């Protein structure tokens, strides 16, 4: 359940920004969660609703933007999509695939009023 810690991290960033911007409430929180990150979006939504219950973001809608996984073959160099942290190169069949994108867990923006 490290989604709870992540939800707290998100809330911290959101509340800091909301305070700086003198927001009355946070309407939307947009996150980017990579396909290869260790995050379960449904669990994150649940945890965020729980930790945000009291503050300025209590009614905020969480929008999770999926970032597709991508990688590069260390054997032949081909860049390709990756659905998991490991895989087989579509060109040469090597297992030496190095993930290059899709591990992000970021707060992109918030909508406030």
């Amino acid at each position: 359940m490290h989604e709870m810690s992540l939800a707290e991290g998100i809330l911290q960033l959101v509340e800091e920004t909301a305070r700086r911007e003198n927001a009355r409430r946070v309407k939307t929180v947009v996150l980017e969660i990579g396909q290869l990150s260790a995050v379960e979006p449904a669990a994150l939504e649940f945890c965020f609703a729980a930790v945000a219950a009291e503050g300025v973001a209590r009614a905020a809608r969480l929008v999770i933007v999926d970032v597709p996984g991508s990688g590069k073959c260390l054997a032949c160099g081909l860049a390709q999509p990756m659905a998991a942290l490991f895989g087989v190169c579509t060109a040469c069949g090597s297992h030496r695939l190095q993930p290059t994108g899709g591990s992000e867990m970021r707060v992109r923006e918030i909508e406030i009023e």
Partner: protein
Amino acid sequence: MCTVCGCGEGETKIEGADHAHQHVHADGTVHSHTHQYKHHHHEHGVGGDLDFGAGPARAHVPGMSQARTVQIEQDILAKNNAYASENRRYFDERGIFALNLVSGPGAGKTTLLVKTIAALKDKVAISVVEGDQQTSSDAERIRATGVAALQINTGKGCHLDGYMVGHALERLRPAEESLFLIENVGNLVCPAAFDLGEHHKVVILSVTEGEDKPLKYPDMFRAADVLLLNKCDLLPYLEFDADLAEANARRVNPDLTIFRVSASSGDGLAAWLSWIEAGLETQRGKRMETVDALKRRVAGLERKLAAN
């Protein structure tokens, strides 16, 4: 990837084939920019806090809701990573070599630590942080070896984080050029995401588990630099295929360093211990470089002063 427009900056580089972005400003002007080789996202003299065009309607209409969007663009773990960097700086300035030991429950982390400490404690100062949800029994086992240990109970938490380890550093005050060992909470999932400031994560897999564990819990095997395949003295009695387990681990992490060991019989521990000693040596070297660089700076400043 560019997180504003979703284009693959850094992945595809085609010379002369930059793509364009169009956007609307608060005053209604529409214009576009091409992507440069290293592109950036900019604001046109209007800070995000006064940009009325950033709302959902892309324009300001008096009387309408003043909803607006504020860019944050920050890593969710930014806070933890800042604490972790602080810890790493602490270690590096003092020439300390820090390891974060992770595994599922029961893989033999504590026994392995006890054996490692027994073999090294006459050569190097050692301090240990023990992470568990409850009890201090692990810290007591470590203290019985004669080195300093601090138990962190995470309560309902499932992992140690950079903040907790920072506090442990204040309490333990590890010696310069010493070995700092962190035994994380027994959990193959969450500790993978939390940097503690260690130099390497060491994952322990025991042969009484399954060969496919690296494929089932890839995040952890990906995050680790070293795999200790533990309880290898039991291999003759099990159907565990150690070669397959290693191959699976390398599928997830091609650069993994692997040692086959048995903490209880002591088999294979020599290679693991030499790896630690090499790490200690590297940290000492790095510290000497920093000390030497400082000495050179001081000497340079003194020369300047003398010349005046």
